[in-house]
């Protein structure tokens, strides 16, 4: 089976979008067997599967999907630091989902409206991600406006991940997007959800103090190396193995 080819695909952009989807998919897959309820286990696995499908299409546009996923070093990955953050408690996972799916939905809607090489995939992804976003919004409200404990955990999670949200709006080479407009729509949307959830928009900086760049430049946080080691070890230990 061959994927639809496109004349010129900007490699940096394909890796940025593809790696975001791949890495978050792997993180969500880590919930398998550990989710708080069976329905939630299924939901997180389904979201992971959608993201994996998107990653496969995107990475295949610019190379061999398996080589790109399993044989690149940490520094060659272009995903956001947000998506590589550990699952934490369930509230952390939901906060990460809220921040990322809102971003991904807005970004893919914009890419789908254009006629660039990512438009076909974006047009499909935007419909799938609408469900991811809805899932995250519903849980944010349920936890924020739930018990004292769930409120406090949701508040803590939103605050802890806040500093990874600024990176999402740094321009990506090859994507023709109005990043400032995207950012203001994102802030508006997230603020609205948090408000309904009786939470407040976290204070504090939206980027880390480290100025060498972040995930888009191949600079990752410590947990990412451990995640990659687990994700890649089978393929690296048994090159060429198949089912």
């Amino acid at each position, binding site marked *: 089976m061959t994927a*639809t080819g496109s004349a010129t695909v900007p490699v940096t952009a394909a890796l940025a979008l593809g790696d975001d989807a791949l890495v978050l998919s792997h993180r969500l897959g880590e919930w398998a067997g550990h989710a708080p309820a069976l329905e939630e286990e299924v939901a997180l696995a389904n979201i992971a599967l959608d993201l994996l499908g998107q990653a496969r299409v995107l990475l295949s546009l610019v190379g061999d999907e398996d080589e790109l996923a399993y044989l690149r070093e940490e520094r060659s990955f272009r995903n956001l630091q947000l998506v590589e953050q550990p699952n934490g408690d369930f509230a952390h996972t939901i906060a990460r989902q809220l921040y990322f799916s809102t971003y991904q939905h807005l970004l893919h809607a914009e890419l789908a409206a254009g006629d660039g090489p990512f438009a*076909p995939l974006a047009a499909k992804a935007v419909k799938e991600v609408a469900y991811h976003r809805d899932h995250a919004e519903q849980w944010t409200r*349920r936890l924020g406006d739930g018990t004292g404990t769930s409120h406090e955990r949701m508040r803590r999670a939103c605050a802890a991940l806040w500093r990874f949200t600024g990176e999402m709006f740094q321009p990506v080479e090859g994507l023709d997007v109005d990043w400032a407009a995207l950012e203001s729509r994102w802030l508006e949307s997230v603020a609205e959800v948090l408000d309904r959830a009786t939470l407040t928009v976290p204070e504090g900086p939206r980027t880390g103090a480290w100025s060498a760049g972040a995930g888009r430049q191949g600079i990752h946080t410590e947990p990412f190396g451990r995640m990659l080691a687990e994700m890649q070890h089978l393929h690296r230990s048994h090159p060429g193995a198949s089912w």
Partner: protein
Amino acid sequence: MVTATALEAELLELAGSVPDPELPVLTLHELGVVRAVHLHGTDAAEVDLTPTYTGCPAVEAMSLDIERVLREHGLREVTVRRVLTPAWSTDDITPEGRRKLREFGIAPPRVRETSGPVPLTLGPTRTDATEAEPVPCPHCGSPDTELLSRFSSTACKALRRCLSCREPFDHFKEL
């Protein structure tokens, strides 16, 4: 676009008759995923297949089944090409396909007036209070059903429960 020949139309029908690997009550034609068959020469064909969800794991099984059926029909070379545009929508499921889904115990997707991104409204959790059109129970027909989870046994389904007969059921959710 080149008009399909009579043979291409026949091959399209043949490829479309392959049952869906996950929902064998439906054919690929009824699911609306086989887009076209292009014949090259006399015995080579290229089939355009579109995935329901980007990550749908059934796509590979579908490709293999299509390949097998067309080879059995005498074609020497069969290539299945994945096409993404236009994006598949649940509106592509045929009326016959919807009827079969209901008989199989899966509530079919509601038909939308317009295509494009799914508009989402925020309602109280665990209810369907804000849904414009009810999803009737495929078992007893009652419109009084509630959403349990937006995700179910496969990516394309949501899990619901009937408030009249109390049976849980899958709903092929709108995409």
